């Protein structure tokens, strides 16, 4: 039976659907979902556990008794919820998460948001990766070891370094591993006490400074010169016999490439220090220039950035540390080795100068597998095409964004940017009173994400965009159009921006309680006790 009563012929113009508006009429999913603790009822079960075989109980003569004081007296106050209800709750939360697959994610500058190929997920959910125990006999994991060995080889060539460790769990962990190696290197030379300073720049990721401090070094941070380039005179003034190392990003988070990078490295070397290259921003220079050519002793890549592994809400990620032969003895153990004679891959744990373990076992293997597959799908020409396209996309977006009223591009006037740009809304802020964060909130109403900058905000009212190779010209045009529209609103209808979000999952958050210890609620039980009084 037709649901549509016969209405006679329809003229084509009445069947025609109007063109889409310039900007999509997005609304984020909004399920008004309760907290997991408010779901379910006593007795509901999400999954059942194998019961103890009666024959085992009989053999043991009863249940296993625990020592005094070590038996749980009160069950954990976890919710009791049926399986589909748990699934539905988390699916709703997933829908209320934008995710890089769904949006034109060029707004998360410094983070190299790119497409994580779905086929690579298949390899790691395969039981032949997911079901491996890290201490299986080497003979049973030859495929996994070969992948790790091959990936090391690929990254050696991409960086020009002599050895690469895949153990660190993320970029910051790789920075820390590099600092630990630097510390080990100088300890072996009897200079651990005297070389206690690490130099970095303010536009290098905060973890360079923070990891150096955590590892026991004094941190010296260089600020840029008037043109936004790392200040070479400041470096000359900072280096000396106490210098252990320079930790530096290039291009920096401004997207500006430091043309004197080799000179920076030489200055540090001349003072007896080492130079470590934070290659978080490597995406625009793959196959163009390498850590080796610039003279670095160590470098690291974020495999979840440049090499495509998914960002997973903030990890698991993966880091890779590349080092020269001189630093290789200090690499985390074990290394993966290949014995050509037997054709076997094996793990070398007997490395007396090693910094030891940076994390358990061999690294975040699923992401190492994904990164390997990604590089293999591209090859040398493909990696270069990644870099060139990312840089083209960035300069194309730069060209479009700088035409928007109220935005500026501080530093290095007229110079190109590599793979990202730190913009400033200072003028727009002065004209309208709207801050960069507010532009980001309003941009979310159009189905996109936007990020300002790491702290401190050296660039006033900052915005950092990094359009990797994954985005089409249409994607970039759409993103620029969203920014242009929000800027127009800031000038013509600032209340709309000021009161955003309007099409989000939730409305404006009242953040005051987050900094008040009397009421802050990092858990359900603290909320109940401190806020509800129950």
């Amino acid at each position, binding site marked *: 039976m037709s649901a549509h009563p016969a209405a006679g012929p329809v003229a084509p113009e009445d069947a025609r659907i109007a063109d889409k508006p310039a900007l999509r009429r997005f609304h984020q999913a909004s399920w008004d979902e309760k*907290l997991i603790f408010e779901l*379910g009822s006593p007795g*509901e079960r*999400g*999954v059942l556990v194998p019961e103890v*075989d009666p*024959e085992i109980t009989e053999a043991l003569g009863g249940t296993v008794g625990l*020592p005094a*004081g070590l038996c749980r007296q009160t*069950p954990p*106050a*976890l919710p*009791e919820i049926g*399986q589909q209800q*748990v*699934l539905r709750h988390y*699916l709703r*939360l*997933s829908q209320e998460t*934008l995710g*890089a697959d*769904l949006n034109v994610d060029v707004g998360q500058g410094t983070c190299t948001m790119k497409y994580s190929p779905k086929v690579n997920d298949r390899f790691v959910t395969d039981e032949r990766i997911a*079901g491996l*125990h*890290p201490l299986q*006999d080497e003979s049973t994991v030859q495929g*996994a070891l070969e992948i790790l060995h091959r990936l090391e080889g690929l990254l050696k060539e991409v960086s020009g370094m002599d050895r690469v460790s895949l153990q660190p769990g*993320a970029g910051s962990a790789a920075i820390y591993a590099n600092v630990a190696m630097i510390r080990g290197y100088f300890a072996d030379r009897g200079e651990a006490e005297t070389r206690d300073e690490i130099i970095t720049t303010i536009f290098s990721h905060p973890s360079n*400074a*923070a*990891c150096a401090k955590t590892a026991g070094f004094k941190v010296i941070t260089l600020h840029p010169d008037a043109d936004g380039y790392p200040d070479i005179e400041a470096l000359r003034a900072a280096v000396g016999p106490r210098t252990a190392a320079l930790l530096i990003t290039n291009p920096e988070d401004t997207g500006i490439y430091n043309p004197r990078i*080799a000179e920076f490295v030489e200055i540090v070397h001349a003072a007896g220090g080492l130079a470590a290259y934070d290659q978080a921003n490597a995406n625009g*220079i793959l196959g163009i220039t390498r850590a080796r050519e610039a003279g670095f002793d160590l470098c690291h890549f974020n495999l979840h950035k440049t090499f495509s592994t998914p*960002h997973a809400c*903030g990890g*698991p990620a993966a880091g890779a540390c590349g080092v020269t032969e001189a630093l290789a003895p200090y690499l985390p153990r074990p290394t993966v080795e290949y014995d050509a004679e037997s054709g076997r891959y094996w793990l070398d744990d007997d490395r007396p100068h090693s910094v030891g*373990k940076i*994390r*358990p076992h061999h690294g975040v293997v699923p992401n190492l597998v994904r990164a390997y597959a990604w*590089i*293999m*799908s*591209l090859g*040398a*020409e*493909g990696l270069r*095409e990644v870099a060139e396209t990312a840089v083209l*996309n960035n*300069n194309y977006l730069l060209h479009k964004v700088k035409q928007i009223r109220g935005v500026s591009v501080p530093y290095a006037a007229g110079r190109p940017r590599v793979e990202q740009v730190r913009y400033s809304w200072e003028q727009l802020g002065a004209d309208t009173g709207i801050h960069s964060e507010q532009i980001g909130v309003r941009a979310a109403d159009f189905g996109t*994400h936007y990020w300002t900058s790491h*702290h401190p905000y050296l660039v006033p009212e900052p915005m950092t965009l990094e359009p990797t190779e*994954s985005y089409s010209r249409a994607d970039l045009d759409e993103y620029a159009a969203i920014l242009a529209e929000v800027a127009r609103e800031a000038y013509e209808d600032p209340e709309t921006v000021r009161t955003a979000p309007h099409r989000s999952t939730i*409305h404006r*958050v*009242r953040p005051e*309680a987050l*900094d008040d210890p009397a009421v802050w609620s990092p858990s*359900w039980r*603290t*909320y109940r006790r401190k806020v509800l009084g129950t």
Partner: protein
Amino acid sequence: MTPPENSPDHLHAQAPAHPYIPNAVPAVRQAMLDAVGAAGVEDFYADIPEEIRLRRSLDLPAPLRSEAQLVRHMEQLLTRNTPATRTLSFLGGGCYQHHVPAVVDEVMGRSEFLTAYAGEPYEDHGRFQAMWEYQSLMAELLDVDVVNVPVYDGFQAAGTALRMAGRVTGLRRLLICGDVDPDKLSKIRDYVRPDHDVVLVPTDPATGGADVDAVRSALAEGDVAAVYAEAPSRLGLVDPALPELGELAHDQGALYVVGCNPISLGVLAPPSSYGADLTCGDIQPLGIRMSYGGGNAGFIGANDDLRLVSEYPTRLFGLVPTDVEGEYGFGDVAYDRTSFAQREEGKEWVGTAAALHGIGAGVYLSLMGPHGMREIGETILAHTAYAKQRLAAIPGVEIPYAEAVHFADFPVRFTGGRSTADIHADLRERGIFGGIETAADQALYCVTEVHTKADIDELAAALEEIVK
């Protein structure tokens, strides 16, 4: 809109654009260059000096541009792995084979969660809520108020918990009681080095548990920031001395830091109940696949004590109101602690770590509930005890400290004259992965809820044949 030209000639004019790089299409590239006013992409590299340019192609294998080629290549590699989960495996020792509920896989595989990163609450409300719920569910399991957004792994959690204790007390020495995994100890030693001296207090050889007198003496020497112990120990032993260690630590003004296996906490007392100020460990057992050791994520639990909360380096999400009645909002609690806010003046550092594993563990705990956690604990305790009993009965096998309670892991000593390596090689011939070799004549075996009585009997029968 005019459809793009797609005559066969046009399609075959040049190598196809790589599927991951839409703007590799030459006409698009040219149009974009024209828009920018650039002669070519080289213009954008003007700041990179010639001396450091790589003027050759990277020397990499030929690309596998089609998905089919790539799958074929990867298949050739994967086929050379034999997963522990497809054999009868008794490997544990910090990475555990448990059943992973299908709903955990489904949620962790959701594209939104898998690919999200650092969105704000207005784009990523669901991510914030899922992480806050993980913190809250773990807090109930650990019986504490505060649990962090996960750090990389349990090693890192131990290292950071100890440094937190150091910052709270301002003291230098860290007493590590009993057996700790040598790799974990390596990480702890490296990580605390700038501020702390690690003092190892070996186990009492008579009991396999902590040497309480030795701990007391070490504490009496003073300057102790923390006493660290594990529940269960590296060898799976549930040490009756754990509560006393906490008292001793507190008597001397030290904090008590306990590393634990969270899947045991439906039956074992949460360390906070016997005095732990900081509880730490790895959530891999809570529904995260082993993935050749890639399934880790570290937790640190504490009570809502400002001294402790102020020392967390990680993000801590908090629940707050919004402008709309009955609507939940989330944000960062005490953000100024972090290196994101303060660079080197923040606590250690914060960065991308293991958030998705936290979401997975939250789903796991939601599915299991209080009954599931108790039952899985009871099953593992029973399986461990049964495995010890069966193996101890084999001539040529001894179970050190068999009279103690073990959870999942337990030690085995081979006394029949054959080496662990030889015995394990013979087991592999029979499709069995023996435990972790800890000495030429010793190993660490592990059973969980996934094993059956028949599995354990099969292991016992095989060992009986080959152990001598």
